Structure formats: C-alpha cells, structure tokens
C-alpha cells in the first residue's frame, strides 16, 4: 500500500511475485553457534583486526617503496642489443627454467611449454574434483598434499636455479657487477658546469686560433669532442700560459706536437704566444 509522503514510516515494498521467497535455503551459512567459541560481528570488530594487519602491511610496503626506487632501464629498448641477457619476471622463472632440461628442450619443447605446465595448472584448477573426498585436513589427504608440496619444491628449486644461473652470467659479463656499473655511472652524473667562451672577439681568436691546427680537433667554439678530445673552455683553470705553450710544442697524451704544423700554416711564433695567452684566459668565472 502506498505510503503518504510525509509519514516517517519506512517505505514497504510489495514483494515481486516472480522472485521465489526463500526462507532458509540450505546455502545460507549455518549459524556459527553450531561452532562453539567466540565468533564476533564482522563490522566493526573483525574488520578492525583485518585492517590492523593491513596497516602493518601498508607501513612495510611504503617503506619498501620509499627506500627502493622502481628500476627503469637507462635507455629505451634497443632490439639490436644482442648481449642483453633476457630474463622474464621472477614469477615466470620456473617456467623459463623448465625449458632448459633435456626432455623439455628442442624436440621436446612441447613438453616444457604445454604438457607439464598444462598438467600443473590443470590439476590445480580441477583440484576439488580430483581430490573430492570429504576429508579436509591436509595430513589426512596424502596424495593431494604430497603432490602440492612436491610441485612447490620443484617451483622454488627451478626459480632458485634460474636466478643463480642469471647472476652467474651477469658476473661473467661484467666482473665486479653492480660496483663497476655504479662507478661508471657516477662521473657522468655531475655534468661539468657549462663554461662560457671568454673574450670571444679577442684578435688572438679571430686571426690566430681560427687558422691554427687546434681548430681541426677542438672546434671553432673550443668545445672539442669529450672524452677523446678535451674542451678548451676553462683550460685556463688547469694550465698556465707556459704549460699551454709547452703542450703546443710537445703535445700531450694522444695529442701530437702542433708547433711545426702551425708554422707550416704560416703562423708566427708571436701568433702562437698570443694564442697561448688567450687560451690561458679561458677560465670558468
């Protein structure tokens, strides 16, 4: 019967005749009073206990995330990179390792990829129908429990072998492993502060440097090509004028003497001296 709008009684709905009114169909849970002991209502009592466990988990989870950044490769994927050791995610390692044994590789790969995993997952999915006895305690269900324990051990073993094999290969590829990679990365991290070109329109630059052989390697803007060919920007910080003159005359490291090459190009001693002077002024202010 329809209710008046403003009556504060709750609206009662006419039962929908098509829905079978089931009083206590057998699927409703037996009242846990059948199980003596202290049952408690879900909200708020039990849920609070679950959420306390969740809180503990959450704190641990956030600590893990804050302490370890999610790994990301330095560069986008490079399909041509042949010496990269492919490794599936950790939870697929056992399947990956399974393919490396005599009766699961080459001719028998179908065993390794279809039949064995198929058995494993199939049996697991059909467990209730395979192990259909009444008994629930695992020590009273030897076949099911032993099979499960066996496959558990097998999976753990395969994953472990696969992981150690991978670590071994990593070490073989770059001995020292993590530590070496860290070193290699560190120096590049602190990029040299960009040093500006000092006194760009100084005559020494205009008619001496631009015509000298230094131009060929160190470039019109003195940037050079690090790491092989050093930049001359900020060279004044490292060497004095005399040292620069000595380097031009005798060369240094992989650089050969440039003195006679420049003289051949028509530069005079006086030019080279003013050039050395100008280079010694290249300081990072």
């Amino acid at each position: 019967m329809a209710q008046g709008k403003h009556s504060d009684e709750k609206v009662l709905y006419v039962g929908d005749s098509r829905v079978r009114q089931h009083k206590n169909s057998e699927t409703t849970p037996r009242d846990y009073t059948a199980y003596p002991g202290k049952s408690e209502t879900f909200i708020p009592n039990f849920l609070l206990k679950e959420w306390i466990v969740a809180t503990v988990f959450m704190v641990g989870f956030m600590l893990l995330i804050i302490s370890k950044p999610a790994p990301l490769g330095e560069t986008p994927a490079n399909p041509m990179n042949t010496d990269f050791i492919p490794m599936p995610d950790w939870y697929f390692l056992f399947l990956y390792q399974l393919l490396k044994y005599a009766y699961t590789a080459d001719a028998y790969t179908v065993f390794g990829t279809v039949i064995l995993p198929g058995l494993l997952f199939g049996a697991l999915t059909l467990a209730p129908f395979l192990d259909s006895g009444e008994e629930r305690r695992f020590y009273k269900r030897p076949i099911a429990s032993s099979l499960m324990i066996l496959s558990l051990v097998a999976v753990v073993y395969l994953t472990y072998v696969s992981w150690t094999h991978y670590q071994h290969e990593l070490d073989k590829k770059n001995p020292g492993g993590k530590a070496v990679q860290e070193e290699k990365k560190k120096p590049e991290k602190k990029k040299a502060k960009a040093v500006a070109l000092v006194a760009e329109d100084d005559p020494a630059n205009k008619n001496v440097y631009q015509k000298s052989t230094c131009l060929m390697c160190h470039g019109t803007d003195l940037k050079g090509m690090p790491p092989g060919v050093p930049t001359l920007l900020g060279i004044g910080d490292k060497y004095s004028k005399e040292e620069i003159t000595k380097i031009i005359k005798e060369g240094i490291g992989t650089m050969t003497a440039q003195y006679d090459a420049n003289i051949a190009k028509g530069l005079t001693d006086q030019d080279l001296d003013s050039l050395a002077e100008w280079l010694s002024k290249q300081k990072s202010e």
Partner: protein
Amino acid sequence: MLKSIYNWIDERLDITPLWRDVADHEVPEHVNPAHHFSAFVYCFGGLTFFVTVIQILSGMFLTMYYVPDIMNAHASVNYLQNEVAFGNIVRGMHHFGASLVIVMMFLHTLRVFFTGSYKAPREMNWVIGMLIFMVMLGLGFTGYLLPWDDKAYFATKVGIQIAASVPLIGDQIKELLQGGDIVGAQTISRFFAIHVFFLPGALLGLLGAHFFMIRKQGISGPL
C-alpha cells in the same frame, strides 16, 4: 548531518539490509587471529584484495602520464618518475605491488589448499580463484612490457617465444600477442589495452563472483 542524509536515502531505497547483511554476519572464531595467532593465514585473501585495490588505483593514476607508444613510452615513464612529484612513489607502488599481489595470492592459494577449503560446496569458488590467478599472471606479463626498456622488451620477447612453441596454434598466438610479426609498436599498444581494459575487466568480474560466493557460502568451518 551524515546520519540524516543516510536516513533520507534509506527511507527511499531501503539500502540498510544490503550492508547490514555483510556487517552483521558472524565471523567464526577459528579464522580470528585474536584468538589464536595461527589464524593470521586467513588474512591473505583480504591482503590480496587490498594490494589489488592499490594496483588498480596506482595504475589508473599512472595512465595520466604514461604514453603507450614505442617512441614515448620510456620517456614518459622516465618523466613521470623523475620530474613529477611523488611519481616514483606511485610507480613504486605499482611495480612492487605487482610482485606483492602475486605473493599474497600465492599464499592465499596455499592456505585454501592446505585447509581443504575447496571441498564441496566451494569447488566453484576454487575454480574462480584459479582463473583470477591466471588473470593476475596475465596482468603481470603484459604490464612488464609497458616501460619499454631493454629488460621489458627481452622478457616479453622470450615470453612470446614460449607461447609460440605451442603446437598447431603457436604461431597464431604469437601473431595475436605481437599484433604483427615483431615485438614492436603494435605489441605495446595491444599489451596496454589488455593490461588496462581487458584483464582488469575480467578480474573485477571474477572478484565479484568470488566475493559473492564467499558471502553466500560463508567461510569453511574449522578443521
């Protein structure tokens, strides 16, 4: 204030029985860690769900910055992780959450197995559980490729090769997964769609069924 709104709605839609039924059902003593701590194993299901919620939320927020094409994928992940505030936290949640959800689900599976809780009348719930397990592995596999760095690319290449070794339909599976004949632009956008729409859709459906059956059949009795 909240109470009055609730009552206003309740008078019209009678929603109280919906949650009251969930709220008031009795939780038996043998699953209650307060009574004997060995019952903590019964928390794995709840934890798995909790981590799944984290995965879905963090995943949704990541799609605000992530671009699933091979030119920008790595750059966008690099950008969101280093340039955007809390980017590394959210990606960390998703990355480590992925591994943790597999761990928690595995422990939950073991608990259900060793307490024989899959016995009648709960067989269907176990089968649905296994389907959820496979969907989760699928999510892990497709999600692993998305950052598109070397590790991701080669892991997926290996994974697809394994799938391709299935007799008869192996090549079709490989072609279907790759969206072409190489692991490339088609693969990443296809994996993105699977990872973000198809599998989560399946997961929500299965989880719905899973929870419905638990509510309907109740937790299996003590051993």
